[in-house]
């Protein structure tokens, strides 16, 4: 399969190599290592049979539910224009752009991605992507530690639990002191006292529970103690919310799935990473820069390469090599499709629809925990275990949200949800929860 050789070709190769069988290629491998019977896997199937096989498996996933789950990954409208442009084979099947003369397409698309991320977050320098939002938080913390040479990490407790697990895996707790701070009244404590042992202040905007707060003063307090402030932001809300750059953050990271990538069961998506120029030498991953070629034409290249593992080896700023380029290109195309008005509508519609939904809940005497401080995602109190509610709601054709804890449910509303779908949710929820 996919080996193009005819018998005639193989004869020609054998003649050139002076061999008469494929086995002769491996006479230098210790005999006891050679597989006598090959690999114990099923015989091949044709493409036609494979279509049936994969359709059958894919139908075992329930994706016909109306999605109210969020937690970093959102069911937004992804236009065909964005999908088909991103899937162009020249983007999809190309290698890392180490040869700029034949890679200007990917390089310029990534340069535009970096610029768009900077414009949207009001930062100065973005990289060409990291794996996902969760790993980007850990990479940002490493940058802060390298910058300050301190060992304290002040991190909000209100993150997706999975993201916290990734941080716990990647930031060595024997060496560094991770201090998880609990929200008070849905706010990171505004009077929090940073110390000069703290390397980083890490906070989600909005918080995992959907509440947003103006973090400007906290960032100033952190800065006063020389602490690097890191903002994990929901990029789909940047058309309506004050930007992390405006609030003074040093590093901005994001889960970029909702800009340019389908839900994809969480991967591949893309991690955004943006910062200020003073952090340039510490940035993980690839950075694309603009230069001129031998004829003085505008040319894009990978730049600041001395940070990367293939050159610096054990002294590199990160071990990342393969990243999420294609998803970053998807982000760039989606942002251009949106424009200033589109990204505004994306956030504004989601906020208005969430507001409508929260009001309906309150009318039905359901306790919305963070009605006023939340934007498009919020927490309600349930009388049953949210797992049971999610199961029962699935039978009604709805993915009800994410279990927040034993009696709370996290609900996300995107611009894609309709009034009809929200009404349907409320009716079914009341039935299911009171049942």
């Amino acid at each position, binding site marked *: 399969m*996919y080996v193009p050789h005819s018998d005639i070709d193989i004869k020609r190769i054998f003649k050139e*190599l002076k061999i008469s069988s494929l086995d002769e290629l491996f006479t230098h*491998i*210790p005999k006891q*290592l050679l597989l006598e019977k*090959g*690999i114990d*896997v099923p015989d*091949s199937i044709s493409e036609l049979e494979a279509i049936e096989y*994969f359709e059958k498996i894919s139908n*075992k*996933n*329930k994706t016909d539910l109306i999605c109210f789950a969020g937690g*970093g*990954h959102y069911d937004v*409208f992804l*236009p065909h224009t964005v999908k088909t442009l991103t899937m162009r084979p*020249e983007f999809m099947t190309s*290698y890392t*752009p180490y*040869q700029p*003369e034949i890679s200007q*397409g990917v390089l*310029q698309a990534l340069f*535009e991605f970096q610029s768009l991320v900077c*414009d*949207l977050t009001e930062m*100065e*320098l*973005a990289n*060409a*992507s990291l794996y996902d*939002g969760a*790993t980007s938080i850990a990479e940002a913390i490493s940058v802060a530690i390298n910058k300050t040479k301190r060992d304290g990490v002040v991190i909000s407790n209100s993150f997706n639990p999975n993201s916290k697990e990734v941080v716990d*895996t*990647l930031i060595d707790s024997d060496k560094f002191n991770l201090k998880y701070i609990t929200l008070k009244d849905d706010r990171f404590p505004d009077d929090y006292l940073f110390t000069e042992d703290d390397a980083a202040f890490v906070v989600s905007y909005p918080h995992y529970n959907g509440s947003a707060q103006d973090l400007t003063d906290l960032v100033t307090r952190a800065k006063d103690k020389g602490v690097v402030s890191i903002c994990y932001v929901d990029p789909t809300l940047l058309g309506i*919310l004050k930007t992390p750059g405006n609030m003074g953050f040093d590093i901005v990271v994001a889960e970029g799935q909702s800009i340019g990538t389908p839900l*994809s069961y969480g*991967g*591949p998506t893309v991690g955004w990473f943006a910062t200020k120029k003073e952090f*340039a030498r510490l940035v993980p991953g690839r950075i694309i820069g*603009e230069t001129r070629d031998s004829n003085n034409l505008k*040319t894009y290249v990978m730049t600041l390469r001395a940070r990367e593992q*293939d050159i610096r080896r054990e002294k*590199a700023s*990160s*071990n990342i*090599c*393969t990243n*999420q380029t294609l998803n970053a290109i998807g982000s760039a*195309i989606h942002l251009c*499709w949106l*424009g200033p008005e589109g990204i*505004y*509508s994306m956030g504004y519609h989601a906020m208005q*629809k969430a*507001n*409508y939904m929260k009001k309906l809940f309150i009318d039905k005497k359901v306790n919305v925990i963070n009605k*006023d401080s939340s934007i498009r995602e919020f927490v309600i109190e349930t009388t049953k275990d949210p797992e049971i509610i999610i199961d029962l709601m699935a039978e009604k054709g709805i993915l009800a949200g994410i279990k927040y804890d034993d009696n709370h449910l996290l609900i996300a509303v995107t611009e894609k949800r309709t*009034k009809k779908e929200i009404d349907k949710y409320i009716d079914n929820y009341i039935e299911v929860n009171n049942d």
Partner: protein
Amino acid sequence: MISGGNASSLPLVGGLPEPTIKELSKPGRRAFNYPKLDVDEETIDHECLKIEKAPLPEVSEHDLVMHFSRLAHRNFAVDLGFYPLGSCTMKYNPRFADWVASLDGFSNLHPAAPQKQTQGALEVLNVLEDYLTKITGMDYASFQPPAGASGELTGLLIIKKYLIENNFDNKKNIIVPDSAHGTNPASAKMAGFEVIEVATNEEGLIDVQELKKLVNKDTAGLMLTNPNTGGLFEEDIIEIADIIHSVDGLLYYDGANLNAIVGICRPGDMGFDIVHSNLHKTFATPHGGGGPGSGPVAVKEFLKEYLPGPIVKKSKEDYEWYFPEKSIGRMHGYHGNFLVALRALAYMKLLGKEGLDTLGSFAVLNARYLSSVISKVLPLAYTKPCMHEFVSTSKKLKKSHKIKAYDIGKALLDRGFHSPTIYFPLIIDEALMFEPTETQTLETLDELAQTLNEIIEDLKINNDKLTQYPKNLPVGRPNELIPAKHLTVNWGDFELLEITE
């Protein structure tokens, strides 16, 4: 010579640069199209709301499509021509796998959906785990790592945790060959180990005598790719494994070169305890211009409980997520790069036993053939028979005619071929590393060798042309001095960000 792998017919001939999308922006234009707001609008007062609009480009949909299509035209790709890039396994990416990944049941699945709703996805990972562990000779796998480097870090964190659990706290050294990929030492450092380099001997293999001297009670493990980065099979691998195991160290297999041995032999049988695979290399998922990849990690039974979780467990009734008891934790926000793993399964299903049993054989056959024809033009770095890739050197040409590996690579671009990997492995002067993969035709391999010959003969005579290539592409060689002085990484500033360091 006419071959399918040559892309010299491409209309990439240099014209003007493509403007940025920001330069194409005009106030009031738009591509987006949303339904009207269908709920009653209310005035919402919130301390975080802003008044000004985000400064994104304003373009029509057609402008958007033309711009990114033109950018696509300015790029080489597997779908256009031959990448003989050593260490990268740029094989053909079957279209069918893209179709599978685009199925609604997979692409629109929310990662936080409960496992009851995602049985298909768990089945995919379970079946793929079965293929992967049988191909590599391991027992269990986790699909958490989203790329090869993440897989390496996973493996090293597993080694670290295993050693601590077994009271080997003193073991701090990870041995890495001097020919290894840069990610190896970088990952070892990230995991908190000290990196010790072991030298490669003149034949291109690990110097076993030196390895013995370096190995002691402080040795935590060895990272190795086999075949190594010189494309040679480490024939002493069984002895090497014994040396490391004799001091209670573990062996980590860097799967970068797995394509060479699929169906021939298995890392698990060689003595490796942990293996990562690059699904975007060996199993034909597209590289996406630099990513996404997928770097699942497979281990022997005794390390199962250390795997990053959750992993899939099959029960009588269904599939469920299982978090290993001593797990190193999560390496990804959800389930790794699931759609990449799915594409790899599609590839394996189509290849089946007969395709997988011969995969390594044909990859090696093509490399052996290419090395045979190229060796008549450029000397090989090593005399031992190569596996799926090989290294040539232009060391002599540099001395005699000032022709560097870089110059040869650049001239190839002009002739419709991607450059081979150059200056790697670092231990070989003026290295050019070729990996044809099993999906290239004989004519393409012949044509590459012939083109190399023509380039070298031409440069020998016309030495003044050395630095002029490429000439027929959208841009010529970049001026490396400008980015060294000015950090222009954002369309907002050309002169603003000056690096003085």
